[in-house]
């Protein structure tokens, strides 16, 4: 049976879709059979980031409403034959997802795939709660910024209360993925540090993705960053995150933490 990961954050624009695409592709690059699922009904974007926007015929709402079979709606990635996308509907509203329908689709996906990576919409409404509902693992995407940290805290509370696992009295595995991290600014004391965010949210860290132009470049090209440039800093950080997700005890490294020439000369320390 496949494992279900929800990529969630509460706040919008922190990198959920980018991270879903990158983690899904990175898992597939390791030979796992992966489906990435867009839960953002009405504002789908995972298709665009994956470069499959022109190949969408059926979507998750069609499957739930019985207009299409699951294999008809799944889009196979052009670069990786073991990576599939289940797009969200762009025209319906978020009420088109029903809890019963989502459960059937998730159970079907779990039979065919090793990993199902669900891209949650922002917010804490129906779409977000349905995306996390059947998750075994949650990846909480957070920027080192006050509003993102606050919203992540809220989402962690929801994960412990509203998921099927939590309702059965089990613990849902939660991991923090810190994105858009700028080690230089954090070192200067102008940005929350990794330790600050970890102290406040107190869930284990799965990876630190550096702020990087490679991420924008990849989405411009319609490619997960792990496929667009596997040797770029963000791609390597996603590969490491995936290794940790699969249980490898890999020590965390902070990408880009080297001092610039001024830092070396003056040896500044953050307050």
């Amino acid at each position, binding site marked *: 049976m496949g494992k279900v990961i929800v990529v969630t954050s509460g706040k919008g624009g922190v990198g959920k879709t980018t991270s879903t695409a990158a983690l899904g592709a990175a898992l597939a690059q390791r030979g796992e059979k992966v489906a990435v699922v867009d839960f953002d009904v009405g504002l789908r974007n995972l298709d665009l980031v994956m470069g499959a926007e022109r190949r969408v015929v059926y979507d998750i709402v069609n499957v739930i409403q019985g207009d299409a079979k699951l294999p008809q709606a799944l889009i196979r990635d052009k670069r990786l034959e073991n990576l599939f996308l289940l797009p969200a509907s762009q025209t319906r509203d978020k009420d088109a997802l029903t809890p019963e329908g989502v459960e059937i689709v998730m159970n079907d996906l779990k039979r065919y795939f090793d990993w199902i990576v669900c891209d949650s919409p922002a917010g804490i409404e129906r779409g977000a709660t349905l995306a996390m509902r059947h998750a075994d693992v949650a990846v909480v995407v957070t920027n080192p910024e006050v509003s993102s940290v606050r919203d992540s805290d809220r989402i962690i509370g929801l994960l412990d209360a509203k998921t099927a696992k939590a309702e059965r009295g089990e613990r849902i595995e939660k991991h923090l993925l810190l994105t858009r991290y700028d080690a230089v600014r954090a070192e*200067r*004391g102008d940005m929350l540090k990794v330790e*600050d965010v970890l102290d406040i949210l107190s869930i284990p860290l799965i990876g630190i993705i550096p702020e990087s132009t490679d991420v924008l470049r990849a989405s411009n090209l319609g490619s997960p960053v792990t496929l667009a440039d596997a040797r770029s800093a963000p791609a390597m950080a996603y590969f490491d995150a995936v290794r940790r997700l699969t249980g490898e005890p890999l020590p965390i490294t902070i990408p880009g933490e080297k001092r610039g020439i001024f830092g070396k000369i003056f040896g*500044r320390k*953050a*307050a």
Partner: protein
Amino acid sequence: MSVFNLFRKQRSAPTARERLQVLLAHERAPAGSDLVAQLREEILAVIARHVELDHDRVRVKMDGDEHVSILEIDVEIPLSAVVQAA
């Protein structure tokens, strides 16, 4: 500390951290059940009964780990207020 620090703006990350700790300690607690948040409210209320509190001059810090919570309250009381109370 290098001379350059004299000309730099104060670091903002520690402020962000403190603000979040106070806010989340408050938001995590189901209304009224969090002892530390309740203490903070009541202590400030007691002080406010005797001197006029300027909320910009009150600093609340919360910290702690799984074993202890630390509540730190810094209240600036103007000298004029002390004279009045005496």
